[in-house]
């Protein structure tokens, strides 16, 4: 898929996402070797629990009592203190599955979640070539119901909900009056007066509070996050695998569309949505939390022959990064506007209704952006990581929001918020990596387009 800033194609591409939020728990610039469980410095915290291979026993360690090997690492990261008090991490309905499959578990956005089941690279490749199964039940779901539901949501978000058809999905941002992003979310139109909003896990409380604070007209807001599970089956073989377990004709569900009350593998009432966060074709399945484990096992069993692999958040991040899909907490944040983050296609300044953030976002559009999300490739030796500064000669021109060695492209790539003057493809710049300026060049995004 060819995606360039603001084109209709990008609209389609980038809308195909559900959204993750990261903790603002930040580890130091570089961790000591022992701190390796800081999977991503700015976000994922610490391996709090690990399946002991020897006897299958479950052991966990996040009480901070003395295991010197671990606790010392924690102290070296800023999140260490937070972890100590955070003894009530939430678990999804699939937590027992993580243990059963020997996943490496980390604290993430207040949840205990699997960073990988086998290896991030293996899982990444499975999704690009065959298919992967993800548990994304930590995501939040909010039902908005009532005769004013449409106008209310349209006031909250930047995209234009009035353009939606029943059983359609729209990607959008929710902003503060100053244009900063509260969250990015998916809006599902269940019917004319009923919508499902899918929000980032770490933003659930903040978002719901904001929604209640700005309630307008006859609407009811219901946070159903705890009752809902969400599985994502992603990859070129996702449809053929899922089709084996349902009579619904999946080929009739177009991109950014969904079907309600679908029966899959004998489990009734699943919402099947052709969306995803990987840059591949695939589906996201919303269902009752109590049925999640059963569906997971049945899908994995069905897809085994086709190469379906259980995948963790590590691969989810490498996949979304290559497809240049924004991650809240990195590309998007309270102080970053959706226009700056390159999701301007989800901001409809000229929609008929008033919406929160309109004045600020219009001004940004009018006077030009101060910074713009840009793809870079490090051509020297080094991997760009979140928070690294970017330079043009001596001039500091911005920072990296996400970066890694791309598994599919085998290049060291980054997304960076840069002064717009330096964002044309081919522009040479430098990334400061451990006090050394390493050569880099602006390249087109997305880094990866499915063939």
């Amino acid at each position, binding site marked *: 898929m060819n995606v360039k800033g603001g084109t209709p194609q990008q609209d389609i591409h980038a809308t195909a996402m559900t959204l993750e939020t990261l903790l603002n728990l930040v580890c130091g610039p570089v961790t000591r070797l022992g701190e390796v469980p800081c999977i991503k410095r700015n976000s994922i915290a610490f391996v709090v629990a690990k399946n002991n291979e020897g006897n299958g026993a479950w052991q966990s360690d996040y009480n901070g009592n003395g295991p010197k090997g*671990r606790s010392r690492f924690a102290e070296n990261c800023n999140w260490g203190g937070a972890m100590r008090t955070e003894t009530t991490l939430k678990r999804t309905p699939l937590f027992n599955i993580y243990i059963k499959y020997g996943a490496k578990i980390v604290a993430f956005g207040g949840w205990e979640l699997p960073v990988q089941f086998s290896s991030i690279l293996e899982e990444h490749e499975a999704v690009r070539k065959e298919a992967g199964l993800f548990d994304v039940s930590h995501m939040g779901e909010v039902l908005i119901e009532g005769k004013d539901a449409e106008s209310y949501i349209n006031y909250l978000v930047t995209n234009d909900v009035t353009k939606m058809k029943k059983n359609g999905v729209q990607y959008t941002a929710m902003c503060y009056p100053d244009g900063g992003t509260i969250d990015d979310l998916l809006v599902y139109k269940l019917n004319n007066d009923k919508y499902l909003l899918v929000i980032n896990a770490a933003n659930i409380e903040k978002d719901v509070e904001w929604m209640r604070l700005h309630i307008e007209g006859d609407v009811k807001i219901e946070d159903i996050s705890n009752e809902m599970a969400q599985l994502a089956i992603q990859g070129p073989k996702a449809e053929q695998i899922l089709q084996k377990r349902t009579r619904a004709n999946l080929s009739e569900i177009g991109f950014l569309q969904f079907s309600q009350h679908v029966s899959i593998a004998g489990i009734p009432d699943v919402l099947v949505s052709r969306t995803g966060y990987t840059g591949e074709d695939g589906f996201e399945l919303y269902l009752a939390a109590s049925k999640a484990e059963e569906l997971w096992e049945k899908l994995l069993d069905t897809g085994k022959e086709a190469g379906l692999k259980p995948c963790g958040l590590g691969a989810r991040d490498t996949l979304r990064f290559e497809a240049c899909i924004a991650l809240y907490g990195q590309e998007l944040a309270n102080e970053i506007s959706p226009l700056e983050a390159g999701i301007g296609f989800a901001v409809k300044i000229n929609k008929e209704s008033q919406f929160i953030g309109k004045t600020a976002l219009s001004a940004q559009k009018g006077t030009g952006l101060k910074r713009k999300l840009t793809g870079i490739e490090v051509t020297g030796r080094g991997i760009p990581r979140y928070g690294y500064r970017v330079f043009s000669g001596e001039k500091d021109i911005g920072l990296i929001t996400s970066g890694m060695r791309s598994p599919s492209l085998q290049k*060291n790539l980054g997304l960076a918020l840069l002064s717009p003057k330096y964002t044309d493809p081919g522009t040479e710049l430098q990334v400061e990596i451990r006090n050394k300026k390493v050569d880099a060049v602006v390249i087109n995004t997305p880094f990866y387009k499915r063939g």
Partner: protein
Amino acid sequence: MTKVTASLLYSEDHEWVQKLEGNRVRIGISDYAQDQLGDIVFVEHAEVNDQVTANEAVGTIESVKTASELYSPVSGTIVNVNEALEHAPEIINEEPYGAGWLIEVEMSNPAELDELLSESEYQNFVSEGEE
């Protein structure tokens, strides 16, 4: 249960040290460390003839998702580096105690070895951390 090798010494930063002839040692990272890091994609370290100091940074190892600093367990001069890692850092995952070694150091203070952990001490250290 993490794999360890009895003939080696270990640091609490999860490096191993192998005594070679004279005051020369070979240094790598433990099986536990490579497992915790996951798929290793990048290695960078000081070069031959560079001076290193015990417990000070001597390089960086990056996995898909994280960058971790490598601390030298001993002081001295780097006399050899594992050049194969530049293009195939995944060797560290595959053979942390063998082909995945990192650097060799001519020690200036061999007494520093006394500060390191034996195989069984390291094994305890790691399993304490997992409880």
